């Protein structure tokens, strides 16, 4: 297996302070978090509001919502990386 030159880390306490010094969340991450809460509560509310609609529970909540989470995560990462305040 290929051995690579080990990375020499910077002093850890300095890195830790860098990580903690920048408390701002990027705009997309904020929207991502709001989206996460809204989608989750709406999915659960919908499921309990129409308790007999099994097809909706299966199709929407167990199949579509996890894909929406994945989309949110991908979307949030994409720009947060560009806007990242920690690099």
């Amino acid at each position, binding site marked *: 297996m290929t051995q690579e030159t*080990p990375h020499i880390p910077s002093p850890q306490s300095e890195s830790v302070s860098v990580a903690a*010094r920048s408390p701002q969340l990027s705009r997309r991450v904020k929207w991502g978090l709001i989206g996460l809460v809204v989608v989750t509560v709406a999915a*659960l509310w919908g499921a309990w509001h129409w308790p007999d609609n*099994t097809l909706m529970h299966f199709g929407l909540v167990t199949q579509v919502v*996890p894909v929406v989470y994945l989309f949110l*995560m991908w979307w949030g990462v994409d720009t947060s990386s560009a806007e990242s305040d920690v690099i």
Partner: protein
Amino acid sequence: MSFKPWRWRLVLAGLVGLTVLTFALWFADLMGVSKSWINGFFLVVSIIGYAAIGMFCRTTNAEEYYVAGRRVSAPFNGMATAADWMSAASFLGVTGLLLSDGFVGDGRHAGGLAYVLGWTGGFCLLGFLFAAKLNVSRAVTIPQFLGERFQSATVRWLAAWGAILCSSIYLVAQIYGVGLVASMLSGLTFELGVFLALGGILLCSFLGGMRAVTWTQVVQSVVIVASMLALAIAVSWHTQGHPVIGIAAAQSLQQIESRAKVIEADPAEQSTREAMATRVRDLETKIADPVHAREIERQIIGRQISRAKADNAPLRDIQRLESNPAWREPGVERLVQAWQVERDMLVQTMDRPVGFQAPDLQGLNQGWFNSLALVFCLMVGTAALPHILVRSYTAAGPVEAQKSIAWALFLIVVVYLCASSLAVLIKSFVLTELVGAHLDQLPEWADRLKLRKLALLSINDYNQDGIVQFADIRLFNDYLVLAVPEIVRISPIFTGLIAAGALAAALSTADGLLLTISNAFAQDLYFQTVSPDAPALRRVMLSKILLMVVALLAAWFATNRPVNILFWVTCAFSLAASTFFPVLLLGLYWPGMNRVGAIAAMVSGLGICFYYIVTNQSWVQMPLHLRPSDTLWFGLEPICAGVFGVPVGLALGFIGSKLPAFKN
């Protein structure tokens, strides 16, 4: 990131190896080779394969051993994170959970939807809030990060014990799962199965630490996803004639709903539930006055045994009478415990919906609140599990760390889409083939599942009519997926394949947990307090020794067969959420957070959560003469303890940091 062809070759080798192995064993099955040989071969080849990768990646370099050199690219780190997270309980358990609890459940307990949403949504929290920042910190363990962030040895010490507690509960459940799958595959006893699999775990993590575990987990993630996908496609093809399992499940739903309505209205089903309710009342009377109840029951059983012996009854009948806990158990406490277990099992079975929800549910009932609380605990817990958080350190950079979470979520979503669809299809087999069958003419698969060493099905004819009602059936949900090939009547090779996936899931999680625990002991407790200037090689060697000790201890606990794996795994999420989420969130996003706030957040969060879980256990309630309703807050289940621990931790973290006497 430069392109590393050997890494993709490793993934390809995993996939090709699994395919070749599957086809070879399929051929062996066609040639009439015994199933136990085929399954045993799957087990041995899997463990040897993982161990070989572990040995190939062995290292004594500290940076490699603890954080895999901090240069794993996003797709591979994501694959390793997915395998690290995907435990036996979550890989196998989700299907069984949805099958048993339904989607929205019985109106009182959390429905199965809560698990799917909580376990997937938590990755968004992790990716958005923590992954990049932890990567930037360049720490090695979470307690180390917290210790340095707050410049406090006490914070690090507390965080280390928190990580050990959460990870140990999780680890014992994993090793138990490994033992069950290994013994099922190989035909060995459970204890031997545990120690055989333990050998595989140790060879991966002991020799190469995080470096070996990372690359083993990459291959394990391929096995996990490929095995679930292969099973899903085969089941879908067999039942509906096409490979899209989501559509196949949706096609079956209408039939399931109408069949469930017929079963719910069946007088035989009602009489079964009435017989069960009578038995529950009977057990509650006995539990209230156990000494008197035991004497009466012993007299009755004694007479029955004498009569059976006088009539030359078969030995099996006499043994059945003698196995009654009132006859067998000398101590009252154990007898009461046995009665409580039976009562809880009956209540659980009676609450279980026939379809995917109880009939006549209305509005936002207690089940909605329990589900919401559970989603919160699982999401926050996923974002705060120490063995998952530590994966942020192995990524090549902050962006890679975040992207790796998206990759992990992608793989986990693929598995869960298949698992929830499988639940629907198995339900259709249970409702159409098993319910309504005569006890002496059960479907072939039901007979086989009943008679297995690890029985996945039991049937108790409560109303004594000789016909199986839905309430008579008890499926062992944690491992039911292993029986899908038999239920659907597809090639037994899929049993070996899905068991190989389950084994990979349990082994990968156990590896990650073992490393987290041993590193917390070695790095955060021993070297921080006893020998802070120890050289790197000594640190690695001690970590390895501690890893082996922890593994053996966990295996010993697992061989004592803890019950209800899913309950304890879910509790571990609540504990991790309460201990780490408040301190990480405030520590990373609020510069005013200080060491007093950190200590207050961790102690109060963990304390409240632990208190709520423990006080709702029957072994605590019984000596204190408490009823379950006395100790529940707002009717929320103990697995949702994090819903109290996290807000309390956040509040006290804030208040502690604001105290004038301790303000920095």
